[in-house]
């Protein structure tokens, strides 16, 4: 045991106290029935139609949201790079600024924009375009989710694409590669680490959020997060709520191991 590794003591105490123990508690609840006996019912409850439906919708919403974020982010990051806005923190700056306005208020603003009598329908009416009724719909929730998490995707892609040397691209161009080829053969492979961390940062929260669906779904659309919240806050079945949380956690962890980067500390830097 290296003496220096003792420095991790307070931290290890902390995660034991506030991450590991709470996790054990929630797992204990998950495997206990309401009268206190052992049961696997709360876990198996995920496979009842009601919960499967919410879970499928959540997964679908999260996948769509992640895909849209990826599709919107690449061109944006490339455009920023092309216009030479990189280097300085300009682009980062402009992206994180909205995050300083409370996210519930930003969702509320979306509600004002999308509601039946809202700003969007007013604009469409002025332009004599047909009304687009998306208030309280699945589409509205997905717009909200994309809005919430797009900056995370852009930032993490930006971080890895920004590091690509211009020389590399110049060289490819000199060798006759066209723009598309450069993108698929150089930029895309080199941006994979950023892409993966972006996926984690977008997929996980969009899979589990309940506020977005509450604000933009009008109580009609339920993500698995809403179901869990209701178990804890309305029906007061903590055991079932914990059971569903545990399944959700396992599901998220499994889907993330496919994307998580194998984080290996290089051996030569191990001194510190």
């Amino acid at each position, binding site marked *: 045991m290296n003496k220096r590794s003792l420095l991790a003591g307070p931290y290890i105490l902390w995660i034991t106290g506030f991450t590991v123990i709470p996790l054990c508690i929630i797992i204990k609840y998950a495997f206990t029935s309401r009268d206190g006996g052992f049961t696997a019912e709360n876990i198996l409850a995920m496979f009842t139609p009601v919960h499967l439906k919410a879970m499928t919708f959540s997964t679908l919403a999260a996948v769509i949201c992640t895909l849209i974020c990826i599709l919107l982010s690449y061109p944006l990051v490339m455009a920023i790079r092309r216009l030479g806005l990189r280097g300085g923190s300009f682009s980062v700056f402009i992206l994180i600024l909205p995050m300083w306005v409370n996210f519930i208020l930003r969702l509320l603003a979306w509600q004002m924009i999308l509601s039946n009598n809202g700003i969007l329908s007013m604009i469409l009416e002025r332009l004599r375009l047909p009304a687009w009724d998306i208030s309280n719909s699945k589409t509205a929730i997905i717009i909200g989710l994309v809005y919430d998490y797009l900056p995370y995707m852009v930032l993490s892609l930006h971080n890895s694409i920004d590091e690509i040397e211009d020389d590399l691209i110049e060289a490819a161009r000199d060798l006759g590669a066209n723009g598309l080829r450069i993108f698929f053969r150089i930029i895309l492979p080199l941006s994979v680490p950023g892409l993966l961390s972006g996926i984690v940062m977008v997929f996980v929260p969009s899979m589990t959020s309940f506020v977005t669906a509450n604000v933009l779904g009008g109580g009609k659309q339920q993500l698995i997060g809403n179901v869990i919240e209701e178990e804890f806050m309305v029906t007061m079945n903590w055991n079932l709520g914990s059971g569903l949380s545990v399944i959700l956690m396992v599901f998220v962890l499994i889907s993330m191991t496919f994307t998580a980067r194998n984080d290996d500390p290089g051996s030569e830097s*191990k001194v510190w």
Partner: protein
Amino acid sequence: MVDRFKNFICRSYIAVIMFFLYAPILVLIVSSFNASRSRVIWGGFTLRWYVDVFSSRSIMEALYTTLAIAFLSSLIATLIGVTGAIGISAMRLRNYKIVMAFTNIPMLNADIVTGISLMLWFVKFMPLGFSSILLSHVTFNIPYIILSVMPKLQTLNVSIYEAAMDLGANRVYAFFRIVLPELTEGIIAGFIMAFTISMDDFVVTYFTKGAGVNTLSTMIYGELRKGIRPELYALSTLIFAAALIVLIIVNIFTERKPEKSSGRL
């Protein structure tokens, strides 16, 4: 010509995305000047909400709590996280991997699971209140600090540290003079990240807060159902403006820095 056309396309695309990101904020800013409390009717221009916001005790208390929690939790998380990161990086590979796996849990875990599990734990030994919110914020902030400091630790040039030791510096001195400056950038980035996340957190706070304690997030969520007080639009416009100014200043600062230090690499 083609290049200029392409640049035009790029600019338009950036503009469209920016519009998407800023449209709701524009709506909020406009609402903060709306004299009518209604969300849809324009009742004329007013600055009243900007005055009222400072005399509303509940809003000011929530703002204070939000800032106090964000600052204290980031600070404590930084202390624990930085020492923790140094400790972890000195571990053997197997232990390193185990600890890092646990570090990732709060980040990979759904907020709702983190919040609920902490609530279930806290109710067993302490009353919920300011301190329970603080403890849970520290918990989800630490990983951000560790993950932003760890890469810097891994690329740290060990020979400088060893040279300092050879020249007779003791470990503590060498740490503060050699190691810490190298980590500063990571620490600041982690701190800002933690502060922002803590400011914006709703779910974990919602489950771990006690009676009569509100952060801006939980307050706004409560008001969402009842109709938001326009004072809150005014407050968020002010916060937005403050963040804008701070970021512009920081931006001017960091724009200059790379020129000075670029030779060091």
